């Protein structure tokens, strides 16, 4: 199925959940409302003509100037060999969206990573802990306005330039 057909199919079923569709982008994407992401993903996964059985990639992007955080899901179907990108926008102050872990197990760690690095809270996640950073780390390093702390447990994070 082409991305336009996939969008049409989604539109028929979940009209009010889809806020935008960009067919001319390099990877065509649909923009989905955050609170209906689970139903949309469930449909994408279960519908026999769509059968998106694999979540190949999931990333978080912090748009500082536009004041929102975007979570990007790259879906792929091994059955039909087609792909679609699903994007979800949320506020920068309290970014949160429902977890899709129940649909694709791969989302477990991918969501933990996004929580760790961007501070997006995935509601309903079974084990939402930091993944890459230490547990007591303050802040989310991939936020565009993140300022690295001067030290961590007495270890300086600064180093003088060797060229001086």
């Amino acid at each position, binding site marked *: 199925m082409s991305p336009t057909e996939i969008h049409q199919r989604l539109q028929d079923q979940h009209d009010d959940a889809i806020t935008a569709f960009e067919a001319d982008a*390099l990877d065509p994407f649909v923009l989905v409302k955050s609170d209906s992401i689970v139903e949309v993903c469930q449909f994408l996964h279960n519908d026999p003509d769509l059968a998106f059985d694999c979540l190949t*990639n999931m990333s978080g992007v912090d748009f500082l100037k536009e004041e929102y955080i975007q979570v990007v899901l*790259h879906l792929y179907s*091994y059955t039909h060999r087609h792909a679609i*990108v699903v994007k979800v926008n949320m506020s920068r102050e309290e970014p949160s969206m429902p977890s899709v872990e129940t649909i694709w*197990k791969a989302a477990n*760690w991918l969501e933990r990573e996004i929580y760790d690095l961007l501070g997006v809270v995935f509601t309903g996640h079974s084990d939402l802990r930091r993944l*890459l950073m230490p*547990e007591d780390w303050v802040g989310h390093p*991939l936020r565009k306005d993140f300022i690295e702390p001067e030290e961590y447990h007495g270890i300086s994070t600064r180093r003088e330039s060797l060229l001086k």
Partner: protein
Amino acid sequence: MSLAGYEFEVQRDDGLATEEMTLNMGPQHPSTHGVLRFVVKADGEIMRTALPDIGYLHRSIEKISEKVGYHGFMPYTDRVDYVSAMQCNQGWAMVCERAAGIEVPRRGEFCRIIACELGRIASHLLSVGTMVMDIGGMTPFTHAIREREKVNNLLEDLCGARLTFNYMRIGGVAWDLPPGYAEQVTAFLDRFEPFIAEYNDLISYNKIYVERLANVAAVSKEEAINYNLVGPNLRGCGFQYDVRRDEPYSIYPELDFDVPVGTGEVGTLGDCFDRYMVRIKELKESCKIVRQCLDMIPDGPVLARVAKKLKPPVGDAHVRVEASRGDMGWYVVSDGSEFPYRTKIRTGSFSAMSIVDKLSRGIMIADLIALIASLDVVAPEVDR
């Protein structure tokens, strides 16, 4: 690492008093292939679970990309998976080319594929060598490393480095093949192809080795897809899928090669042995691809003209590359400036690590070593 939610109740039928045991494995355990840590919850020798604790090698490579620009990030991609850096180079080059709409000269594509497939041979040799060493056999490792050194020599002739190559550029490759390279590579392949059979005779069907791997930690196809296992780990479940063949990129559509899959020949389909055997078979396929490329390679330039300050249009691009550890996803967001706005690398080892908790339940502690080795996890690729 907090272990809340991972308590297990241990009960015995014979009434003997017992309790759950928490063991620490790593971060500097020789069999964890880098700095990885597992917290093992065990009931005697049987594991209840092994929880991976990662992040020891987190260098924030994705953040670095936002500071160094598109061209400047190329050497950093070597460090994502230093065991097979060529495909990481290729992934980054391809995603930038896609975002900016750059065409790679045909000879450049051939140089890339020759380099990548030699890199795959080197990576798989390390994988099958260390696998035997983890299980307890030292000798086959030295045989595999002996051959790997020869591949490293070839790659050194190509780009001057043996591990972190920095060979590719956005728009092609940095250098053309050196004079007489085709003869050198062919001579190596002639010697190397019989070695695969020799290696199989030496260890692959050794009784002790087979017993250690057969029926251990089998993964079904559905489970593998749900956890997004990729590459040899996915093919080990008997599912014939290879990005090079099924979502072809570069010049792979013109090349003739097979996609080996696990067959369950000594035990269950999708067990540790199947994953191991897929890598052995892929060695041969990579040799086939390199030979074809050397025959078909056209004359011409190897590098397109690309702006020094590359500024892809506003938008995002995603590519998938079949690296040695499977489908590697590269995602880049451009805001129209000369620095990537956001880069995300989804690697094969990352998803392989996330399934360890599930697979380790109910197997012996000693089998954890076989499991990690068979998933071919490389720690820096997990943490990035």
